[in-house]
């Protein structure tokens, strides 16, 4: 499958929505167990809004998470065909308020708030597992369905496959073995969140097979050695053009520590754990979600620092870009401390703040170019 064709296909949200006849279940946080949604017979898709949040501004204040405002704005604009059902994870204040607002203003919708513990201790896993059971009970009762262990195990295998394929793609991308830009890589990851998983697996597998054909593998000489390797870390990134700016000015994005990037599909070792589906599938799910690459919300400062340092070493990162949506306390309050630690380790960093679905690339461009100039001098 040709790259352009594949990328066009997976990005066309409206067309995907039209072609899928199954009932839809939206999700907003990567701690949502998509497997349960699939096992319940729904088509899970992540809400990644493109609409201006202006309609939501009447209900949520403007100093509120831009992602959450955009989600509500899009739902208000496009209901009912867009947002019939939604599972929200209790991952931050903004998400809880989205739950409140959605319940009031998006009428007739099914909405569920799933609680999420903050660590991966045995007790936390047990607690999360019990919460997953509550979600299943509610879905079974509301939609008069039965979510069997078999169905869950099958769904786990489907999602594992997606993660495995994305990990494979990411490896090829990082090692520059294939011709794939950061934006294209991120588009593929994003596609996996809005496309029905099973079909997506078939498409991605075919795409990967083609990519790996000998004639498509880039010779080592074509890899440009002098690029500064960049880690982008933060919350949600909708506007991928930022990654393009990094590459335009001679940087190379090697890891996107965001829930629209590498954090979504996690790493290989965790996947093999979840493969053993003969154990209780809910337990497997609880363990997987609490042990996958964590969101800053799940970590204290020390843990987050160790985690970032490991990525920096593993991927030979030369500079770190923090990209956070405005007002995200969870990921921003510790920034000054993290930046100080980076400075001590002689790793330059840049902080960027974003709105959702907005276009203020001009200002971002100067900062990114200046940042890459700093890295170039440091070399």
């Amino acid at each position: 499958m040709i790259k352009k064709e594949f990328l066009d296909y997976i990005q066309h949200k409206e067309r995907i929505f039209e072609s899928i006849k199954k009932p839809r279940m939206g999700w907003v946080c990567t701690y949502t167990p998509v497997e349960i949604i699939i096992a319940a017979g729904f088509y899970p898709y992540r809400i990644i809004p493109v609409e201006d949040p202006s309609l939501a501004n009447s209900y949520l204040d403007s100093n509120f998470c831009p992602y959450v405002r955009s989600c509500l704005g899009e739902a208000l604009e496009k209901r009912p065909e867009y947002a019939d059902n939604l599972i929200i994870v209790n991952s931050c204040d903004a998400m809880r308020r989205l739950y409140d607002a959605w319940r009031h203003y998006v009428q007739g919708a099914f909405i569920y708030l799933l609680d999420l513990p903050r660590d991966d201790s045995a007790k936390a896993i047990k607690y999360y597992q019990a919460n997953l059971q509550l979600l299943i009970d509610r879905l079974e009762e509301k939609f008069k369905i039965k979510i069997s262990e078999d169905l869950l195990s099958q769904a786990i295998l489907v999602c594992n496959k997606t993660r495995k394929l994305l990990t494979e793609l990411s490896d090829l991308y990082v090692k520059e073995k294939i011709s794939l830009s950061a934006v294209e890589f991120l588009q593929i990851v994003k596609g996996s969140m809005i496309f029905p998983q099973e079909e997506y697996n078939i498409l991605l597998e075919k795409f990967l097979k083609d990519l790996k054909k000998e004639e498509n593998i880039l010779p080592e000489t074509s890899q440009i050695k002098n690029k500064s390797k960049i880690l982008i870390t933060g919350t949600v990134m909708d506007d991928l053009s930022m990654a393009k700016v990094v590459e335009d000015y001679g940087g190379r994005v090697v890891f996107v520590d965001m829930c629209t990037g590498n954090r979504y599909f996690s790493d290989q070792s965790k996947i093999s754990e979840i493969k053993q589906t003969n154990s209780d599938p809910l337990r497997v799910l609880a363990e997987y979600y609490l042990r996958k690459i964590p969101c800053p919300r799940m970590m204290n400062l020390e843990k987050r620092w160790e985690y970032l340092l490991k990525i920096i070493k593993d991927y030979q990162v030369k500079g770190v870009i923090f990209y956070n949506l405005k007002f995200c306390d969870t990921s921003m309050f510790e920034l000054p401390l993290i930046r100080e630690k980076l400075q001590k380790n002689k790793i330059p960093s840049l902080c960027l703040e974003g709105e959702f679905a907005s276009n203020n690339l001009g200002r971002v461009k100067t900062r990114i170019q200046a940042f890459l100039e700093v890295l170039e001098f440091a070399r």
Partner: protein
Amino acid sequence: MIVAGLDIGSLTIKAVIFEENKIKGFTIVPTGADANKLTKDCLELTLKRTGNDFKDLQAIVATGYGRISVPFTDKSITEITCHAIGANWLNPDTRTVIDIGGQDSKVISVDQDGRVVDFVMNDKCAAGTGRFLEVMANALGVKTEELGNESLKSKKKITISSMCTVFAESEVISLIAEGCAKEDIIRGLHEAISNRICSMACRLRLENTIALTGGVAKNIGMVHALKKRLKAKVYVPEEPQIVGALGAAIAASRILYSE
């Protein structure tokens, strides 16, 4: 070896001609809709002053927010890097640069070789910039270049609380209506801007000497307010407005050396 540096800013365009490690001449002109032509004119005017010809220029580097749109340059470098290079050349003791330009302000940490270590920029808002002062000068019926001297006459402290350009303007208008003295209001504005700049600057490790660059550094009232707030060794170049263009010119000569 003759080179040129161009700084296409939001309010003014600056050109510097640099020869054998010396500033040979410079020009500052206001920006307009056709930045390309204006930049070319600005450069030609400078060349005329220095008695040179366009053909004499061995390298041209552009900076400023219009840096990419000018076709006749060899390279574009951000104003952050250029201000660092320029300030370091003017005063090698510079470790921090505070540049307050027409539409943005930035604070840059610099090492002993003039390399950028870290930087912060203000966020999508004209507050604390040259444009902000222009709007306020207009509301007060004072020329922008008179703001500095006016504020030095102030005897009474007034606090301006709004930093949004629009709100601050209406706050200023209310203060005028209440009968407050112009010079006190202007001082209040300068202090408000310097508070804002300092809170941004403190995100970096502020080290002496601090160089003030950009057009706003020509405003003596602003310099006073910043000095008071920063409590640091402050250096103001003779022509703070051309530091970016100067840095670009020095970068141009370095390109030639490296070739």
